[in-house]
């Protein structure tokens, strides 16, 4: 009884807030047919924004894959004064409002930069913003796995003659890969959908620094919901496919292990 009540409550809530609206986006994108959808996505400004977004997201994912794993490694295996503070600070991009993140980056890398680098209104500025907001994903997925990793495995490998690099490559890395991929996929999904942090630093110049979310935003502002829905649907599909593929890969790896 209570179960059925809460189940219908939960599904209704989820439907009203999430499922129905998302379905409406997909519906709207297909309302005028597939060819119109393709046409809308390939309109020059939208297509440039989508391409830029995907390329940047791939770069962001790769940088995170390496740097996130490295930071997780340092947080688990190294010890130095201030490590706990570093560990706390990693989550800041999750807690900090994205618009503030944009402003924060602009203050250091903007046109009156203290470092003398001006990334404002440039693609590199957008890249910085995306790196900022995605920093925690890989760190926070790899860190717990590394923490749980059986240190005896490394001693065993060493006693069998494996050097440090071999042990890392053949013993540690294979055990981290599922977590690394999971975190990277999340970072990628976040990067293709990011909006707030790029608004101020990118200047939103069409064909140059305008990312997909901004393109969608502009289309909504000019009441062009059909085209906005088309680009939105494309973003949704890409994000979901990436997350699904990685989930599937992790499941396969788990079954094997």
């Amino acid at each position, binding site marked *: 009884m*209570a*179960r059925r009540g809460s*189940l219908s409550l*939960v599904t209704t*809530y*989820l439907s009203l*807030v*999430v*499922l129905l*609206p998302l379905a*409406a*986006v997909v*519906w*709207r994108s297909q309302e005028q047919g597939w060819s119109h959808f393709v046409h809308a996505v390939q309109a020059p400004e939208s297509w440039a924004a989508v391409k830029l977004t995907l390329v940047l997201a791939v770069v962001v994912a790769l940088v995170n894959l390496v*740097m996130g794993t*490295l*930071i997780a*490694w*340092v*947080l688990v*295996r*190294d010890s*130095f004064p201030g490590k706990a503070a*570093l560990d*706390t*600070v990693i989550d*800041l*991009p*999750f*807690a900090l*409002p*994205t*618009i*503030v993140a944009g*402003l*924060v*980056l602009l*203050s*250091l890398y903007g046109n009156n930069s203290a470092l003398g680098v001006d990334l404002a209104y440039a693609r590199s500025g957008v890249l910085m913003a995306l*790196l*900022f907001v995605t920093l925690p994903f890989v760190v926070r997925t790899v860190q717990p796995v590394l923490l749980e990793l059986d240190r005896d495995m490394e001693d065993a490998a060493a006693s069998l003659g494996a050097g440090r690099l071999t042990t890392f490559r053949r013993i540690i890395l294979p055990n981290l890969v599922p977590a690394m991929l999971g975190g990277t996929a999340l970072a990628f*999904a976040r990067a293709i*959908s*990011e*909006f*707030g942090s790029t*608004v*101020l630093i990118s200047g939103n110049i069409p064909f140059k620094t305008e990312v*997909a*979310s901004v393109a*969608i*935003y502009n289309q*909504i502002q000019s009441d062009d*919901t059909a085209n*906005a*829905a088309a680009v*939105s649907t494309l973003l*949704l599909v890409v*994000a979901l496919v990436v*997350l699904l593929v990685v989930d599937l890969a992790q499941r396969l790896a788990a079954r094997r292990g």
Partner: protein
Amino acid sequence: MARHSLRWVALAYVSLLLLLPLGLVAWRTFEKGLSPVFDSLTTQEAGHAFQVTAVVSVFAVVLNTLFGVTAAILLVRHEFPGRRLLNAAIDLPIAVSPVVVGLALILVYGKFEPIGGWLDRHGIGVIYAVPGMVLATVFVSLPLVVRAVAPVLEEIGTDQEQAARTLGASGFQTFRRITLPAIRAAVGYGVVLSLARCIGEFGAVAVVSGRIVGQTQTATLFVQERFENYDQPAAYAASFALAMTAVIALVLTRHLRRRGIS
């Protein structure tokens, strides 16, 4: 040696990306002393923006907490057809751009038929008003409480609950006296996380609010509007205030997570 170089690479990356820019914002904010910061945060416009943020966030967090705890119990304690599907659907908001969230809500609750049109004919304004902003904020922060509570529920198991039932406690009594105290820290963690997310939401709210200054403008929208109108002191001051809430949230979540573990 190699280990140290890794440490420096990590520290340099985090410093350049996070710490230096943040420090600079603090410095820029207080460059001309405390009073201009105070002045720009006490204008009517700023005050109203923070007030709107507070109202929207509180509504969204209360709704999501009720939903989150119910959904977590449902997912962990019950077996029913479609459970995995529901589980996956709850994570959906993570993969959706805030702007798409805004668009999605407009398409249903804006002037479009059937729902939006019906609401419109009955004089219920959702989009460009607080209800729409609450919906948008609920959407983006939906998974947070569920994902904070579910693993803890899983970990504490059903032994204590079953023991309470054998001692004569009703379902509700068991929940209130056994389950709830056990997940309290996790709920707190989820609430703080959601609150931070709600206060910081920008894109989805930017789309559905219509950004009417003095009416539907939130604190984050205020930052952008002031910045683009060349009122940098106000933008920095509001940013600093928002950053401070983020830092407080961070410290709180850390504290709660540690309590949740022990």
